[in-house]
């Protein structure tokens, strides 16, 4: 009998993460979330519900917001993944991160990476969103601490400062 670990075998799956080419040796059905956290050590991407309801595991896949708990890693083959770790550059926070910090948009921090990446895609599509657009765009990201007001203010503030995705 074969070792269950190798029933269908692992394979090499290559994609870009935060501008870097990576090849992981993984089962095709492993969740992108687990590969990011456990294989690549990118623990900024959080697991909340594990069923696409809470948005904590949001990443950008080819520039598009997705729940990484619902993406089999094989479907990321050849794609470009951006996680929260890509936002700050040479020790400087991204304008969205800075605004979350200043407005109190981050408390326990579990939803924050997903919130910021969702806001990132919004600002990428629409640099000056109104409050309703921000609310709609972040509606798939749940927060149990802030009551949302400070999060919405942070995104408005970042947009005012000309933040881009």
């Amino acid at each position, binding site marked *: 009998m074969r070792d269950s670990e190798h029933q269908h075998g692992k394979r090499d799956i290559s994609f870009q993460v935060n501008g870097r080419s990576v090849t992981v040796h993984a089962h095709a059905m492993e969740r992108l979330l687990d590969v990011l956290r456990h294989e690549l050590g990118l623990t900024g991407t959080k697991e909340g519900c594990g069923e696409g309801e809470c948005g904590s595991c949001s990443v950008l896949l080819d520039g598009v917001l997705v729940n990484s708990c619902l993406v089999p890693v094989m479907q990321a*083959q050849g794609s470009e993944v951006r996680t929260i770790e890509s936002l700050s550059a040479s020790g400087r926070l991204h304008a969205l991160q800075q605004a979350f910090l200043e407005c109190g948009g981050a408390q326990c921090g579990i939803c924050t990476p997903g919130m910021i990446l969702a806001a990132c895609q919004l600002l990428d599509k629409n640099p000056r969103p109104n409050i309703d657009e921000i609310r709609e765009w972040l509606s798939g990201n749940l927060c149990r601490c802030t009551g949302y007001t400070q999060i919405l203010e942070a995104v408005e503030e970042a947009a005012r400062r000309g933040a881009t995705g």
Partner: protein
Amino acid sequence: MRANPAEYELVAPGTLSAVLTLLAEEPGGWLPIAGGTDVMVQYAAGKLAARRLVSIWNLEELRQIEVSGDEVRIGAGCTYTDLREHAVVSREFSLLASTARWTGGIANQNRGTLGGNIVNASPAADSLPALLAYDADLLLVSARGERRLPYGTFHLDYRKTLLSPDELIRAICLKRRFSGYYAHARKVGARTAQAISKVCLAALGKIASGVMADVRLAVGSVAPVPLRLSATERRVNGKRIDGALLKSAKEWASTEIRPIDDIRSTAEYRAAVTGNLVAEFLERLAETEAAR
């Protein structure tokens, strides 16, 4: 119990014909997975019976929206975001565009596909009543060829459909003849995004010579399948909208559905809300006529 990825196989042949060949070789042996918004949830919960999956995500042949003179053909692999962003869909099929907006949140709209939702066959899916209201056709494809059938005949019973194990939905076909209709969609749920509906309504109608004409009422979450309220439609068509009619329409609609008690709501509540949603639609239809 969480699934063990080592027990699952996932292949991505990359073209529609290669996927169809695989399905034909072993009908029922492979479960198609598109954006994973339903399949991966079952997988993560350890409840996915299929062990071998074939990826149909982003197959070019399934990701087009073709607009011709009298028809719009939406590739089954188009996402809710694709629907929201398409000019002709937004303008002429607003029930579909607006229900796409409240299906899940943005991340799920970026991955969830219309074809996937149809095959997943949840009676609570927000966008499916819109397809009933527009009398959509489905184009099914297999290695044996294509067949076209009315979407209204596709769901046989709770999560049972006419799809053969070697088939995929290729496209959803909509006739471009509804621009003159008043369109109204409503979702009643704990919240708009993410939450699954307790009741959702997609409705179309016109007023001609002061009476209702071609009223179309379709509801979700109130029967084992997405449901067209054909009996209620027959009873309202040809009538003037007044207080007595609204009262009767509520009654007709709430008795035509087959709701159940479940984790989200009760049968009694669903019956009351369905009646109210239908009455609300008819009132607005009357207002649009009065405003003309």
